[in-house]
């Protein structure tokens, strides 16, 4: 109630326990992450090796891009359910182009980017201009894009692509593959954008209170449009990387990825109501999910059980976060 009265109390040395507690509570997800890493490192000798850590990063990369796009959308209070199928449609568009354009790298890249951007822009246009709820809009796009993915390949995967198609995912620079570099660049630049630019502040503002943001001069429709477009674009790139890794365009690629992406954002502490969440949180969330996937694989846990365990961990992690937030608020 009275801020001036409580502030000095927190600085007293007798409260150091409370301060440490506060720190833990505020960064609870980092703590959870460390515990999980410690557990796997203890149980599996192969877990904490550089090779395996690289594997985690490689697996995380395509998934990171859509989780980042999802973060922006969720920050505005929306949701993008279509990213998984947009990945598939973009991958198919890229594969089709690669098959027909021969040994060209630029054209497949363009095809994936354009397909993703187009799908995202349609989402953004419908949500921002017509006010259709994002859940519905992107649910429609999920079905539509998935349909297109099959249409492009005539119901079958596109095989026999030129070997250069694999260079998107398999080129290494400084010992890191291109997708991992792209992931790191995307995390760093989005973290900067969200924290330090006008655009980032406006995204938070319309998620926090759209009317108040508009009154303060934010053109909310443009911002809303942009987050879906970005999400689509990143899904397009993500689809390209997945297809490139196996040099095949598969119409069912990326299926269900949207749910993992949403889980990563929520584990990262974002509110589905909008206005709260950070890019770093999402990064932690997605590393957490990838670490669990990887660790359970190493422990030879059967796939179906992995799914069960992951489900429990996701809910538990968010539960702990909600509990910590409630404690922190008191």
């Amino acid at each position: 109630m009275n801020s001036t009265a409580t502030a000095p109390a927190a600085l007293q040395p007798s409260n150091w326990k409370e301060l440490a507690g506060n720190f833990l509570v505020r960064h609870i997800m980092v703590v959870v992450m460390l515990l999980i890493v410690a557990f796997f490192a203890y149980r599996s000798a192969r877990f904490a090796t550089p090779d395996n850590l690289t594997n985690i990063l490689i697996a995380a990369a395509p998934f990171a891009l859509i989780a980042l796009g999802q973060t922006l959308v969720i920050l505005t209070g929306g949701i993008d359910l279509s990213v998984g199928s947009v990945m598939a449609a973009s991958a198919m568009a890229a594969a089709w182009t690669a098959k027909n354009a021969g040994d060209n790298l630029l054209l497949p890249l363009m095809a994936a980017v354009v397909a993703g951007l187009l799908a995202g822009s349609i989402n953004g246009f419908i949500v921002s201009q017509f006010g259709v709820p994002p859940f519905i809009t992107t649910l429609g796009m999920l079905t539509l894009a998935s349909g297109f993915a099959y249409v492009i390949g005539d119901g079958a995967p596109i095989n026999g692509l030129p070997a250069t198609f694999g260079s998107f995912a398999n080129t290494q620079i400084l010992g890191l593959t291109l997708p991992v570099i792209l992931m790191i660049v995307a995390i760093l630049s989005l973290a900067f954008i969200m924290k330090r630019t006008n655009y980032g502040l406006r995204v938070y503002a319309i998620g926090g209170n759209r009317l108040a943001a508009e009154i303060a001069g934010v053109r909310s429709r443009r911002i809303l449009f942009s987050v879906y477009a970005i999400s689509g674009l990143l899904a397009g790139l993500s689809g390209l990387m997945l297809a490139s890794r196996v040099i095949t365009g598969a119409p069912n690629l990326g299926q269900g990825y949207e749910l993992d992406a949403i889980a990563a954002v929520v584990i990262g502490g974002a509110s589905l109501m909008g206005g709260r969440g950070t890019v770093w949180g999402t990064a932690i969330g997605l590393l957490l999910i990838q670490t669990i996937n990887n660790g359970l694989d190493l422990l030879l846990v059967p796939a179906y059980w992995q799914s069960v365990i992951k489900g429990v961990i996701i809910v538990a992690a968010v539960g702990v976060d909600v509990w910590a937030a409630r404690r922190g608020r008191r």
Partner: protein
Amino acid sequence: MSTVRLDDSNQVVPMLECSGITMSFGGIPVLRGISFSLEPGTVTALAGENGAGKSTLMKIASGQYRPIDGTVQVRGQDLVSGNPQAAYELGVAIVPQELASIPEMMVYENLFIGREVKTRLGTLDRAAMVKAARGYLTEFGLETDPKTRMRDLPVGIRQIIEIIKATHRGARVLLLDEPTSAIAEREVARLATIVRSLRDQGVAILFTTHKMEEIRAMADRVVVLRDGTLVSDTPLADISDDGIVTAMIGRELDQLFPERPDASNDVVLEVKDLVITVGPTPINFTVRKGEILGLAGLVGAGRTELIECIYGIRKPHSGTVTLSGSVLKAGSPQDSIARNLAIVPEDRKGAGAILSMSILDNATLPRIAAFSRFGVLSRRKRRSAISEVMKSMRLKSNGLDQNLENLSGGNQQKVVFGRWLTGQVDALLLDEPTRGVDVGARSEIYRIITELSAAGMAVIMASSDMPEILSLSHRALVMRETGVVGELDRNQLDSPDVQDTIFRLASGLQAEPLKDNTP
């Protein structure tokens, strides 16, 4: 349920008696030894500013909170505190500020919830309930169909239905928490009638308020709280309006409002032939440099809509707004901001503050271009500018990174206000600038408004708070049905019958105003 009968013996047993109620939250005292009693067939106003402890006292009297010290007795029986059910059994009912009705259910279902009428087979006897409900509604002068969904009714009617629900279950003590805060003026009159008829049936009524008109219209007696202390408990006839206000705020009203320097003659803002929606005569007025123009009127008169049209949140049907010589683009807040127009909206939480963001970010938003280069925010520039403004606003916070949700209403309002002052403001639109703001912060906001106008800003201020209009403005417009129906200059604002004049203009009635309450 309630079996206690009123006996007509000479000795009146108090319906509700609070003695020595003391309460604190987190070590901060909220109520200090409050004692008072309610007699049957009386209406008592519990007056006090926001934060005086009214709602807490209500919650203790209805058994929701357990006081640290003191007792509550209902008709001589001790109320087991911390047990609302027990209070209810003893006949104490509370109608909270945020109504507890179920919007998706029908009126009669709401009335009978928890004590449904059943048929012999044990199924719901809807016909019987509808019939009984219709009886209750008629008794209270409502023509509402009991089969209307609650959410389709105006708040005022819903509130009366809550009162019916409470009293037809045998409540003898009725506690109304801020009963008029959300309802239209016309509905206040109806509420007053109902309260009086319940009083005549012997119910003891206690209602909280901070509005003078309501105290005059409904109460027989007024109990004033200030900072958790009971400062006055008198029959209404024995205390003047000024006396009540002085008791509420702890000083003379005049001291609340600063001196008002004269306005200049240069016109800053001109509203020309503005029609909000198709309707009455177009609105025309000008505001001069350094002038505070008050907008008075009843709820729904169109004050908020007018302000929204000027600022560009709403597109008017026709007409223009000119600011410093150039016409503002209709429906464009961006254009208004670029031309140094600022707004403090009525609904602070809904339209002003972004609660999940920090003070710094909230204050950055309207002037974002000034704090950034190539779209990148400059850290130092905005921090220093905003911290300076917030210091001049005397904002109380733990630093600029504190989220608005953790500030008090008054401090939130200072942020919503102060965020404009990092740049030039030529005209300022204020919509209920002190709603939900405690009295301390209120006088500071008055000081700021006056200082800004003295520095040359043109101010338009819509307010339902009569003293605010009367004491702050250089001139006032009265609105009714989205049109301007009267203009009062400073001399008229100083005349003793100005409140009546404004009320008559605002209500469009030539009848006696609400103030008159001979039973």
